[in-house]
């Protein structure tokens, strides 16, 4: 597989083009889609994030995407959730009334009142356990964050990095082929592009 086919899930409220061009800059073939069939036939899924929980879950529901995403992940195919795309993997979020996908145990919480929310800007990512996304990236490198809520996984073992903002929160997860990052690699300059490059390598290695 020279050029893995990556589908970026479209749920209407995201910075899709930024994610797409960051993947393309690393030599991937991408398509933006909200079609469950397209998703099931992809080599990998990127679930981008920006937007709010409830409208996003409603869109996913309307487009019949929830079951196909769950099936895709349960088949252990490469999946990368970004920002809201990470938070939606858990059971629920304090941000919304809708249930999230519930693929991982845990929820998303608002930052404590002693820090400004949203958490906006470049912050350090301290790597805790090996995650192929961070290959060649030093611990405590800077990435760009924009979010008010953070994921709180029940299972500590899936937390691959932490970031400090009032609390030490989970800034990335890995559970076999399921990965998620709270920061925006597509907005994090050379380090961010490296994360996408690593994801593409991971897809190729895992499937060849």
């Amino acid at each position: 597989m020279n050029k893995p086919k990556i589908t970026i899930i479209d749920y209407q409220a995201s910075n899709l083009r930024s994610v797409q061009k960051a993947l393309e800059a690393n030599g991937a073939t991408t398509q933006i889609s909200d079609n469950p069939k397209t998703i099931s036939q992809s080599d990998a899924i990127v679930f981008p994030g920006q937007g709010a929980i409830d409208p996003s879950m409603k869109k996913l529901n309307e487009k019949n995407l929830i079951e196909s995403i769950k099936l895709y992940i349960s088949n252990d195919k490469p999946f990368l959730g970004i920002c809201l795309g990470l938070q939606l993997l858990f059971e629920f979020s304090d941000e919304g009334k809708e249930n999230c996908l519930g693929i991982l145990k845990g929820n998303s919480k608002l930052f404590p009142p002693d820090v400004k929310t949203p958490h906006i800007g470049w912050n350090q990512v301290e790597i805790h356990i090996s995650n192929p996304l961070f290959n060649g990236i030093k611990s405590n490198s800077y990435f760009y964050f924009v979010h008010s809520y953070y994921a709180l996984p029940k299972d500590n073992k899936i937390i691959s990095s932490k970031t400090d903002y009032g609390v030490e929160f989970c800034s990335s997860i890995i559970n076999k082929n399921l990965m998620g990052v709270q920061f925006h690699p597509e907005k994090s300059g050379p380090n961010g592009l490296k994360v996408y490059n690593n994801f593409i390598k991971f897809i190729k290695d895992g499937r060849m």
Partner: protein
Amino acid sequence: MLTKRIIPCLDINAGRVVKGVNFLNLQDAGNPTELAEYYDNEGADELVFLDITASTEKRSIIIDVVKSVSEKLFIPLTVGGGINKLSDIRLMLQAGADKVSINTSAVINPRLISDASEFFGSQCIVVAIDVKTIKDQILTNQVTTDINIDINSNWEVYTHGGRNKTGIDAIKWAKEAASLGAGELLVTSMDTDGKKEGYDLDLIKTITDNVNIPVIASGGAGQLNHLSDVLQYANADAVLAASIFHYKQFTINEVKNYLSKLKIPIRLN
């Protein structure tokens, strides 16, 4: 640790970058795509584009500029100017913007802030506020609302690129915008803008003391200590500057090294 952001601002007029003094006397300062690429390579933390003469017929120009700039840009881009409704925001995001800045339309219709932040998320919505110090306190017989200027007000909000007085108190409006769901405030002092004599520290400090969302300070950067002052003493989360960067008085790197030596948290390359 979260770092303070250094943000070059590109005022765009008919597809070119321009710079004025006190919002007037516009001069050409370059090609937006070239400047954006240059600042990205230099280590800028974000970029802001303000379409300063936005109108319906010129809308397509800025969209084309955003498209071509964002193709090569891997840092956040905020676009403002003439954004009046949710579909305008959607268009900008599709063109490659990460955030939008709304100013006049938010004053006219504050519900735009809540609607936009509900749909796109607060992180996407920057409320820009243009402010002037109130010199002669004349309370006109405008319709009184909770956010109007009163006897204790020091700063007034202006709209339409600084042309129109609103009778609104800047601090009250900042709090209102934050409570409606703005993700950030971009505060420009029209008194200090373009003069290169420093940011309005009182104004920025009063606003950072009164809201719990990030505040970007704008208007007046001329020397390196102006930037450190507004970050340290007025507690701004980010600084916006235009002419010091466009005319290469300082590079982003020089600014960042200077601030870093003062122990201000900065992302260095």
